[in-house]
């Protein structure tokens, strides 16, 4: 947890077998939920943000990720790495959130109504310069490119694991990464000019 909070680019190690809290959770130890949540919550929340989940949806998205995790712990066989499982859950959840927003935006367009921005504030999340620049650049990527880029370049996962998480071959992953890097670099350079 402390290691995760420090913010190294390689946040989650890839254990060969389920780590003790997970093992205890699988065995029905409810107290171990707490340890598991403490270990993975910052990883999941930050990853969802990087995937473009907005602050107003972050809490619900995180809750859903962990609810899924806790509910299906019993069927977790340990074949996949815990972090692989978590990242997959996050990607699915981010997709759902995006779909919900798409529906909402369509409705807004149909009804020609746009809600006021001031209805929701994001007081506790600082969009400071580095994060804002990166977020703007990430927004330029397609969904799949973004997933590959965030997992490989920002989460620091090995290519094989990234390919497993996003469900493609490694060759496809490298191609996506190559394209994503070009777009990302251009977008990042553009933000340097903008105030």
């Amino acid at each position, binding site marked *: 947890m*402390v290691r995760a*909070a420090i*913010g190294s*680019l390689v946040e989650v190690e890839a254990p060969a077998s389920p780590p003790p809290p997970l093992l205890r959770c699988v065995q029905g130890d*409810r*107290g171990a*939920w*707490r340890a598991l*949540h*403490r270990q993975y*919550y*910052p990883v999941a*929340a*930050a990853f969802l*943000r*990087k995937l473009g989940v907005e602050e*107003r*949806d*972050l*809490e*619900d998205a995180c*809750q*859903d990720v*962990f*609810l899924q995790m*806790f*509910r299906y712990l019993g069927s977790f066989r340990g074949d996949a790495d815990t972090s692989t499982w978590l990242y997959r859950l996050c990607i699915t959840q981010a997709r759902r959130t995006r779909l*919900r927003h798409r*529906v*909402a935006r369509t*409705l807004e367009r149909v*009804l020609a*109504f746009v809600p006021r921005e*001031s*209805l*929701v*504030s*994001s*007081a*506790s*999340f*600082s*969009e*400071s310069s*580095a*994060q804002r620049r*990166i977020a703007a650049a990430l927004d330029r990527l397609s969904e799949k490119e973004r997933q590959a880029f965030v997992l*490989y*370049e*920002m989460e*620091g996962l*090995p*290519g094989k694991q990234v390919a497993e998480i996003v469900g493609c*071959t*490694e*060759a496809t992953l*490298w191609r996506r*990464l190559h394209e994503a*890097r070009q777009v990302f670099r251009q977008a*990042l350079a553009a933000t340097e000019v903008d105030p």
Partner: protein
Amino acid sequence: MSEPNELPEAERLTSDPELRDVLRRANLEYRAGLDEAAAFRRVSERLAPDAPRSRPRTHVVTALGLACAAAAGWLVWLQAERVGAPEVLVGPEVSASERALVGPEPARVPSDPETDPHPEPAREATVPSAPIAQDDAIEAPRAAVSGDVLEAARRTADEARARKGRAAPEATKKPLEAGKLAPPPHDREAASRRSPRPATPPRAARASEAGPGVGSIAGKGQLVRSASREDCLELARRGDPRAAERCFDQRAAGSGLGAEMALYEMARLRRDVLRDAVGALAALSAYRERFEEGSLRNEVDLSRVELLAELGRSGDALRESAALLAGSAGRERAAELHLLRGDIFQRDVQDLRAAAAEYAQAEALGGSRGAEASRRLGACLEALGDRAGALAAYRRYAAEPGRPHAAEVSRRIDRLARAGMRPGARP
């Protein structure tokens, strides 16, 4: 020729020094403002046996139908609202469902120096003298459990009292401002130890209160047996914290995670809304007795230490925090605990050297709390007359950009640097 799954790893962008810095900083910033403890509480609530199995799924057809109806209603409401309704400011700690329930009442989450990147402007700093003056003292860390909807409930309760023409009793307001609470007329903690489950109204009486065909909340002060946690919170939001307390008490009489949550929520309600720190402590003690290995045990232990400090029971707070630090759960929260111990030593025991030692330990653990510890360590050393040490601590705090108290610390650094240049200044 190698197989596709044996391709060599591509060179990472982090090999570029400039991009590495930006990515590293962004990675840190993406983790800012997360409240893991609150998130876990909410997940636990939804995992409780009496919680709804799942939230309504977004089904496109259902959503379209519902959203059309809602949008029509909203448009009507907007028309009415244009006349002039208060702006809703809801912090992200409040979940979407709770946000909807908070209503138009402004529910500004209080500024937390640990997590809030946009805190209230710091008060003008003055040169402290040992011991640190109240105006210049570093504020005590807010409890991990405070904030969210209870803050709104507290405001509602205060306003309800004001509307009735009787201001909130000074005796209940003042102690919190001073960081201590006056002892209550009776020892509720002792009473709770004797009877951890206070008596609830008879079943028939409760049923008759609800009346036929009424939902789980019949109105202010009225409860039925099947009140859910949301119902209890709703009572608090309506400005009836006593009814909410009874509601939680009733839920706490059950078993499992629901009862755990109820006891914990009751403690928060008593502390944050009813200003009853002793009652809150009693609820936490009851939790420890009933759920020795409970899911929220770590939070409860930490909250207990904070409450003991709030009640001025410094010795107990220091003893319990030391015991926590010796265990594995406490070590995970070591930075918080060392900060809290530092505050107790500084504010209550008036032992600035011990406080500085605690802050130094918290600082060594790093993270946002480590940075905050640097600031408090600086203030302690400044009060002890160690100008060089204070300056170094403040500079460590200010080294990272975007610190919440950067302006205040910068002023202190300037002041200390100027003092150091004066002839005859102490090193």
